[in-house]
């Protein structure tokens, strides 16, 4: 059973805002869905097949970067070629 408090904790862990009026709805839906997921408890053990593909890589070669203008064009805030972000301290 998932409680409203659990849902709040999951939202915090997922770093997603959740409005208090959404809590009941989410709690109800999470319980329904997670109950359904309990079917996974019945999954029989199965030897994991080795993925045949491995060692997929590239050589150490320089490919020209995008220009500073191109790379920062989509950013909501820029300053002297840097991209702006909220403060972290």
């Amino acid at each position, binding site marked *: 059973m998932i409680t409203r408090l659990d849902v709040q904790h999951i939202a915090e862990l*997922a770093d997603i805002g959740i409005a208090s009026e959404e809590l009941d709805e989410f709690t109800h839906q999470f319980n329904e*869905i997670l109950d359904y*997921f309990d079917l*996974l408890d019945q*999954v029989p053990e199965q030897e994991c*097949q080795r993925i045949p593909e491995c060692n*997929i890589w590239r050589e150490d070669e320089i490919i020209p970067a995008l220009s500073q203008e191109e790379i920062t064009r*989509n950013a909501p805030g820029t300053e002297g070629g840097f991209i702006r972000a*909220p*403060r972290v301290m």
Partner: protein
Amino acid sequence: MGFPDPYNAFITQCEPEKKGEGRLSGYTIAIKDNISTRGIPTTCGSRILEGYIPPYNAFAVDRVLAEGAIIVGKTNMDEFGMGNTTENSAYGPTLNPVDTSRVPGGSSGGSGAAVAAGMVRLALGTDTGGSIRCPAAFCGIVGLKPTYGRVSRYGLIAYANSLEQIGPMARSVEDVALLLNVISAYDSRDSTAVPKPYDHAPDPNIQGVRIGLPEEFFGEGVDHRVAATVYRAVERLEEQGAETVPCSMPSMQYALSAYYTTCMSEASSNLGRYDGVRYGLADDFRKHWHQAFQEVRQKGFGKEVRRRVMLGTFALSSGYYGKYYLKAQTARENVRADFARLFTMVDLIAGPTMPTVAFRLGEKSDPLSSYLADILTVPANLAGVPAISVPCENVHGLPTGLQLIGRYYDEERVIDAAYAYEQTTKKGG
């Protein structure tokens, strides 16, 4: 400005371009809006990507342009591919051209509707758990999910990386095969891509092809009228020389749980990059990072996306990883093993694409009941095998789809069988 779009199939319409030379010269094509297009907004049906203009093309887009196709626009979709109705879009729902009170299916509903309505000849969709085949079935067109690794995912905005593929949608099997041919060239930028370009013209000769009919595809939860229609379609294939074999896929019982656990887990990680810093909906820069990040995600993502991101976070969190994520991977192994076993006995597996006809708009308001409708499409994604949906008879005027699933990289046989069936329907039978 632009062209009329009565079904809200498009999020962005493109300036008409001159047609180029190539195998798709002059063909109009619609691109699902989670496939990156240089200089053309790409939103994934989400507010969070508002204003984002990719500086590069997805590999599949470069391929269709190189073959002379004309991009008409970017099509509507369930936000980040999360849904099977195209109602979960920040740009409003797309309507089913066959019946505008119904959904076109999803998540590639815009592509499905645009093709079905004749607005374009071809469309690119993406299929994570049925997102090409579902709208193909609901709108009455052909849609193919290629083998995982057949088409480069470079430029496809990730929802669930280990499950999804870009694939062709069109009104005929021939067009689907042609578009697959164009987009399946090898691209080393996708480390999960395999150099096996598709090169085969559809051949309706299916003499001696063995087709398995798993009981689970026709059982509980499947509308009996849909099941009956698909049985009749299979009979047509038998008339063409195919043999049918009754069989069973026990892993189907937990396939849906495995699918949703996996896609939610991967999505919770994939969607962490939408933080309002480098692109998309802007953060409130006056706030602290943590708060601004939570708010931008609350504002920018719709409810279904937030639900899946939260559940995926939960499924990966310490203490639950073993119960959910790891168990889902074991379940996937069981699905693969089931297919492997069946494909020693049969060449193809057939069943309905969707258990019902297209839902009414607003009918699937409860998330779990909407998830349950994916039961017949997710097995192919979990295993990575190719699957096509080809239209069969209507049920009460609404399209249904025959789903054909094949062995890894055996799109040839999948396409040939679909083509053989399509030919029988064209003879007016």
